[in-house]
């Protein structure tokens, strides 16, 4: 018999994740009432900032995270694993050169920064994590490590 570890969803664990409960509540509301959240914020890149949906799948040998992050360059995306938390960050700076005709106009800089942290399940091969970016979707493959084998500890009787 195998005991299944109580792990409802390793991803959605607001209390223990760094993103915090409030962020998760905000996101929940944004998902439930998208019209409302777009009313709150102005600006075009603005209403998109910070929010991107994530899916988590489980496979025989791995967990797979998919994140929709449209319009980034590969070098603008970064992944970090620390203390069992995976952080996905996208940071993009676009400089639109003003029209040559209109010399007065400044160089417009548009900045976009998004970030999200996910609590990872246990027993992963952290050095074997792979990521790919295609069609604006980031796919992170997190291979599972072999189940921790029960260890026998010999007791020396003296």
């Amino acid at each position, binding site marked *: 018999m195998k005991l299944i570890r109580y792990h409802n969803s390793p991803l959605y664990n607001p209390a223990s994740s760094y993103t915090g409960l409030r962020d998760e509540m905000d996101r929940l509301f944004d998902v439930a009432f998208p019209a409302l959240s777009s009313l709150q914020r102005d600006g075009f890149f603005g209403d998109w900032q910070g929010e991107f949906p994530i899916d988590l799948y489980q496979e*025989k040998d791995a967990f797979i995270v998919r994140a929709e992050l449209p*319009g980034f*360059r590969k070098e603008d995306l970064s992944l970090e694993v620390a203390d069992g938390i995976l952080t996905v960050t996208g940071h993009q700076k676009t400089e639109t050169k003003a029209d040559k005709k209109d010399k007065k106009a400044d160089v417009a800089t548009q900045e976009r920064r998004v970030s999200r942290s996910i609590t990872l399940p246990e027993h992963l091969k952290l050095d074997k994590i792979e990521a790919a970016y295609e069609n604006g979707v980031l796919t992170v493959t997190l291979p599972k490590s072999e189940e921790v084998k029960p260890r026998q500890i010999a007791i020396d009787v003296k």
Partner: protein
Amino acid sequence: MNLLTKTTPEASTPTAPRRAVRPWYEVRETEEAFILTAFLPGVDRSSLETSVDGENLTVFGRRVFTPPEGWTPVYREIPQADYRLVFELDNRINREAVKAELTQGVLTLTLPKAEAVKPRRIEIKG
């Protein structure tokens, strides 16, 4: 009636009908053109249809990803929906010259202004 003719062809398509949502988008105006940017993550070139039909400009994008066998969803946020965006074009746009570009899930549509509406200088003779 109008509504009926619009919904029927979609409902009768052989592929499973899926919910279509309006993607995030913005429209900018330059001297030469209107530029539409839409976020369509998960859509590749083959699954994107951009068409100008009479008055309407329609963008339809299908999220191509389907989880391979053996993948169990643990947690899902990405909507299982396609993208649809419909705009009504007026005579300010040169419909013949609409250009589309898709990079990493971002669609950029360039809708050039018709010659008739571009600012024009009129020379006075005599």
